[in-house]
C-alpha cells in the first residue's frame, strides 16, 4: 500500500490547503518571471517593429530610444543610395497625452512614411494607413476601437487599424500616423519660441526633422560596411539592429530589469525556504509514526519513499496550481507578462530539486530516529 497517499488522504483538507498556499506563492514567482520577461520583450518591441538592419541617428548619440536624436528627414535619400542598402525611411517617435473618453491617454506616437520601412509589423484588426493624413493605427491596449476619432495636437484622427502588444519600453501603447502628420504634431506641441524658430527655418531646426532613419540591407550586404559609410558623414551615427537591441535591454531598462530580476531571485529563495520548511515539518510531525514503522520492521526504502513521494506531490500539485492560475490571469496585468514554456519548465525543475533536497532533510531526520522512541508511551 502507498503510505504517502494514505497519509495525504487522511489529512486531505490540510494537504489541499498547503498545496493551495504553495500554489499561490509559486504563481507569484511565475508572475514575476513573466513580468521580467515581459519588460525585456516590451523594450525590444518598438525597435523590432520596423524589422530593419540599421538605425541612422544623430552623431554621438545612442538614439532614438536611449538618447534624443534629431536629424534632417531628407537624408533618407542619401542613406537609401548607400551601397548595400535596399530601402530607408524616416521615423519620428514622441510621447503625447491625448483625451479619450474623458481620461488622459498616454500614447507613444510613431510617424513613418507609408511607402518606406517603419510601418507597424502586423495589423490585428482593420487595415493599414492608406491616406496621407489623419488616419491612425493604434495598439489595442490603448482601448481605442476601429472607427474611433481621437484628437492629437490640432487634428482629429480616425482609427483605421489595431495592432497587438505594441508598447514602448515604459509600457505606453504605440500608435502609428504618417510622418507628415507626426511632424505637424511635433510642431504643434513644441513651445511657442521653438515653433517660431522652426517656421523661420533658423536655429538649426527645420520642419523636416526626424528622430531616426531606418534602413534595410540587401540580403548579402554587410552591416559594418554600410555603417562605416554613414560614420564618414560627420553629423550621423549608425547603429546596427543588434546593437540597438543591446542598448535597449542593457541601458534603457537595465535598472528595472535588475530590480525585477533581484526581486524574482529573492522570491525564489523565499519559496525554496518555505517549501523546505513545509516538508521538514511534515516529516517531523510523523517521527513517532516513523519510529513505529521502523519498529515493526519497515525497511528504510518504505520510509524514504513515503517522505519523498509526499514532498514531490506537494511540489507538483502546488506548481500546477500556480501555473494554471498565472496562465489564466496573466492577460489582466496592466503590462505584458510573457511566460515562455521554458521559463515555466525551469521553475518546475527548481521546485522539483528544492522538494528533493528538503525531503532529504526530512529523510535524514527520519533515518536517525530511534525505533525505541515508539515504545516510550
Amino acid at each position: 500500500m502507498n503510505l504517502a497517499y494514505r497519509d495525504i488522504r487522511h489529512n486531505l483538507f490540510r494537504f489541499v490547503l498547503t498545496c493551495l498556499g504553495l500554489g499561490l506563492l509559486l504563481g507569484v514567482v511565475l508572475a514575476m518571471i513573466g513580468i521580467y520577461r515581459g519588460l525585456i520583450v516590451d523594450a525590444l518591441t518598438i525597435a523590432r517593429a520596423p524589422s530593419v538592419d540599421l538605425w541612422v541617428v544623430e552623431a554621438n548619440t545612442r538614439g532614438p530610444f536611449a538618447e534624443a536624436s534629431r536629424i534632417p528627414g531628407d537624408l533618407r535619400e542619401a542613406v537609401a543610395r548607400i551601397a548595400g542598402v535596399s530601402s530607408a525611411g524616416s521615423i519620428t517617435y514622441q510621447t503625447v497625452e491625448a483625451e479619450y473618453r474623458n481620461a488622459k491617454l498616454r500614447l507613444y506616437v510613431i510617424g513613418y512614411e507609408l511607402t518606406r520601412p517603419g510601418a507597424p509589423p502586423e495589423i490585428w484588426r482593420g487595415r493599414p494607413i492608406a491616406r496621407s493624413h489623419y488616419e491612425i493605427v493604434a495598439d489595442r491596449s490603448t482601448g481605442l476601437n476601429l472607427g474611433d476619432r481621437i484628437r492629437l495636437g490640432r487634428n482629429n484622427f480616425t482609427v483605421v487599424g489595431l495592432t497587438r502588444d505594441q508598447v514602448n519600453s515604459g509600457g505606453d501603447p504605440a500608435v502609428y500616423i504618417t510622418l507628415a502628420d507626426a511632424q505637424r504634431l511635433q510642431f504643434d506641441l513644441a513651445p511657442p519660441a521653438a515653433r517660431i524658430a522652426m517656421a523661420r527655418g533658423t536655429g538649426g531646426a527645420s520642419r523636416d526633422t526626424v528622430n531616426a532613419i531606418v534602413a534595410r540591407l540587401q540580403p548579402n550586404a554587410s552591416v559594418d560596411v554600410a555603417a562605416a559609410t554613414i560614420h564618414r558623414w560627420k553629423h550621423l551615427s549608425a547603429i546596427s539592429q543588434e546593437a540597438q537591441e543591446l542598448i535597449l535591454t542593457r541601458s534603457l531598462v537595465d535598472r528595472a530589469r535588475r530590480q525585477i530580476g533581484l526581486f524574482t531571485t529573492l522570491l525564489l529563495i523565499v519559496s525554496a525556504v518555505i517549501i523546505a520548511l513545509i516538508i521538514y515539518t511534515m516529516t517531523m510531525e510523523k517521527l513517532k509514526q516513523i519510529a513505529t514503522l521502523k519498529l515493526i520492521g519497515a525497511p528504510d526504502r518504505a520510509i524514504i519513499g513515503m517522505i519523498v513521494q509526499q514532498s514531490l506531490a506537494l511540489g507538483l500539485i502546488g506548481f500546477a496550481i500556480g501555473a494554471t492560475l498565472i496562465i489564466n490571469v496573466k492577460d489582466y496585468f496592466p503590462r505584458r507578462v510573457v511566460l515562455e514554456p521554458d521559463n515555466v519548465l525551469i521553475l518546475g525543475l527548481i521546485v522539483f530539486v528544492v522538494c528533493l533536497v528538503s525531503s532529504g532533510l526530512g529523510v535524514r531526520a527520519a533515518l536517525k530516529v530511534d525505533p525505541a522512541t515508539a515504545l516510550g508511551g
Partner: protein
Amino acid sequence: MEGEITDQPLVRIDRISKHFGEGEARVDALRDVSLDVHARQVVALLGPSGSGKTTLLNVIGCILDPSSGAMDLVGDRVIEDGRWLRSDLRRLRLEKIGFIFQFHNLIPFLDATDNVSLVLELAGSSPAEARGRASELLDYLDVGHRAGAMPAKLSGGEAQRVAIARALSNRPRIILADEPTAALDSKRAQIVMDLLRKVAAEQDAAIIAVTHDEKIFDRFDRIYHLRDGRLEA
C-alpha cells in the same frame, strides 16, 4: 520440526549487561541478566520504575545494543559478546518479533485492516493476501466489525486489540509487550491477557510482558522481578 525445538528456549539471554554513559554519569540498567523463555510460556517482568524493564525488552526486541552478553532468538545466535551477529535487525524483527505497546501506536492514517496488513505487505505478501489475513486476525480478536475504522475512532480496548492483531500478523514466535494493559480497565485487561495466552498456546509463541498490573498477575506462567538491573525469579 517444531516438536524438536520445543524444549529449546525461543529466547535465551546469557549474562546480558547494559550501561548508559560512562564515568560518573554511568547508569547500569542491566547487570548480568540471564533468562530463558520457552514456547507457549507467558512471562511477566516486574520491577520499580528505572529498574531496567524497558531496557531488557528493547534488547530482546533488537532495538538496543547490549554492552556485553549473548542472546539467541528462536534458536539463532544473534548477539555474541555484546555484538550483533546480524546486520538486518529490522528484517529480524519483521519475521520473528511482534510488539505490543502501552499506547497502541497504530498508524493514524491507516484504518484497522491496513494497520495490520501493512506488516504483511512489508514481509512480502500481496495486498490481497495481506488484507485477507488481516481481516481474519481482526475477527479472531473480536474487532472484525471495526475493520474499516481509523485508529482515532477506536476505543482503547479496540485499538489495543487491533495492535495485537498487528503484532500477530506475521506469526512471530516472540511477542514483546510493554505494559499492554495499562491503558485498559480491568475487564478489558483480562480479555487481552486471555487472548495473549491463547495466542501463545495456539501459535507456539513466547510472550514477555512488562507490567505493573496486579489484576493480571495470575495470567502469567512466570514472574521475574528486576531490581537495579538484576533479575530475580
